[in-house]
């Protein structure tokens, strides 16, 4: 009798052959062709790997079973991710997606994105999101024609940059976080904090070093590359979706802490007046919600740490060749900043101006 894994490996090999055939024969618009080729290469690697496992003379040895099972699982995940992600998006690639992918390409060029441009499809049910391993950015259907959320594209692109350069970009930030909390813990011990309070401090450090620093860094990058427009976009998102702006989740820091961090970067890349305007509106929003800062908030999100990290992040981005926003030099980022200015001055007439701008962009890209 064959080992349980062997037929499963054959099943997976068949699935890879199917994916290979689908992607090979797929006709996509020029904007998506390089992505199609990259995904095809990934599928080919997966297909070859599964074939090599099937041909491995040690496949039936019990001491190897678990390792081949691990290989099988990673390849299953690859096949599923391709199927549900880029293959799904490419097989339904519409005019809106072509347009958004062109916008993403222009954005990438403006700040010198160091990798191949992902494709962007307007088919998300999860707001803006990035599938970093699949070169795919998803946005909700309506975003193709609405400018005010586009600054979030920069946040999503930052996920690609950070995932691919952890040592150069995230590690120095993590070191600063580690050093800060080490000192805070030492001070707490000296001052006789309770062990429970010290445990909480350690828990914040763990959260910072995990997902939080990634989200903060993505926010800093988006602000670095688009200026105040990302701060406005974040404020709108918080107003729309926050349930508790001071609430903390494992995967995301509190919205209020993120707003503070974004303002920290705004102060480094935009004029003080712009930062002041966002800050005033943010405080108005807090007053409207009736949210007040909980006692632990400054322990979890120390102001000095956030300020230092924002400054270091800016230096790291620049040192890696990424270009900061400066008014008048980046057409898409300029457009987003202008959109927010116009929207705030005359929200009732904004929509007509926005439609004209989207139409003009499509013309510039020769899509109409």
């Amino acid at each position, binding site marked *: 009798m064959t080992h349980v894994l062997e037929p499963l490996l054959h099943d997976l090999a068949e699935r890879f052959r199917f994916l290979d055939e689908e992607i090979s024969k797929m006709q996509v618009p020029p904007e998506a062709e390089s992505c199609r080729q990259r995904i095809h290469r990934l599928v080919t690697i997966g297909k070859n790997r599964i074939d090599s496992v099937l041909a491995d003379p040690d496949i039936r040895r019990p001491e190897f079973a*678990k390792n081949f099972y691990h290989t099988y699982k*990673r390849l299953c*995940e690859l096949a599923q991710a391709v199927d549900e992600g880029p293959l799904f998006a490419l097989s339904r690639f519409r005019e809106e997606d072509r347009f958004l992918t062109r916008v993403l390409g222009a954005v990438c060029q403006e700040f010198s994105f160091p990798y191949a441009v992902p494709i962007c499809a307007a088919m998300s049910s*999860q707001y803006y999101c990035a599938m970093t391993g699949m070169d795919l950015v998803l946005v909700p259907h309506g975003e193709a024609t609405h400018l005010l959320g586009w600054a979030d594209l920069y946040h999503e692109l930052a996920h690609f940059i950070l995932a691919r350069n952890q040592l150069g970009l995230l590690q120095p930030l*993590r*070191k600063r976080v580690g050093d800060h909390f080490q000192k805070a813990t030492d001070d707490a011990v000296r001052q006789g904090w309770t062990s429970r309070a010290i445990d909480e401090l350690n828990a914040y450090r763990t959260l910072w070093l995990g997902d939080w620093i*990634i989200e903060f860094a993505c926010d800093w990058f988006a602000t670095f590359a688009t200026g105040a427009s990302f701060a406005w976009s974040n404020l709108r998102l918080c107003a729309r979706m926050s349930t508790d702006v001071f609430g903390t989740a494992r995967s995301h820091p509190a919205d209020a802490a993120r707003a503070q961090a974004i303002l920290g970067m705004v102060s480094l890349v935009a004029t003080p007046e712009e930062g002041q305007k966002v800050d005033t509106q943010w405080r108005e929003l807090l007053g409207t919600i009736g949210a007040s800062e909980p006692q632990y908030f400054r322990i979890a999100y120390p102001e000095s740490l956030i300020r230092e990290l924002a400054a270091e992040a800016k230096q790291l981005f620049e040192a890696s060749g990424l270009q900061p926003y400066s008014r008048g030099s980046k057409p898409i980022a300029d457009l987003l900043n202008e959109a927010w200015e116009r929207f705030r001055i005359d929200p009732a007439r904004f929509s007509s101006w926005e439609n004209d701008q989207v139409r003009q962009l499509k013309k510039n890209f020769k899509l109409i």
Partner: protein
Amino acid sequence: MSEISALSHEYEASARLAEELNEAILTIKKSRLHQRIGLTEDQRKILAGTVGALRQQLEAGQGGGQSEFLPQEMVERLSERHRPRMAYFLDDLSRTVSVLGNDLVPLDDSIIGVLDEICDAADETASAVFRRMRRR
């Protein structure tokens, strides 16, 4: 912005680590079985670096040093599993780093056992994150 991006980032890191560890273990096991050359000196050093980073992160929840940062969920799995005997596990990791760092010392069963265990944790983490991306 959505949790998917954070999970995607996390999945990529844990899946890559799981794959690297698994490939290294397969190479070691095959070299022992077939009496052939196993990991190169550079591959041993990289693996030693990974195990050393794990040790650093496990020890008092450290991290944020100059070494590679391993997925937190994987570290927590190992931490949970070894909580009652953490000092022994840290010793095992130290020995693994030391043996991997010396190309002349052969990799024995206990070293493979430690690597297998780390690989299992990386695999479980990758699978768990992958599922979370789809069953939220």
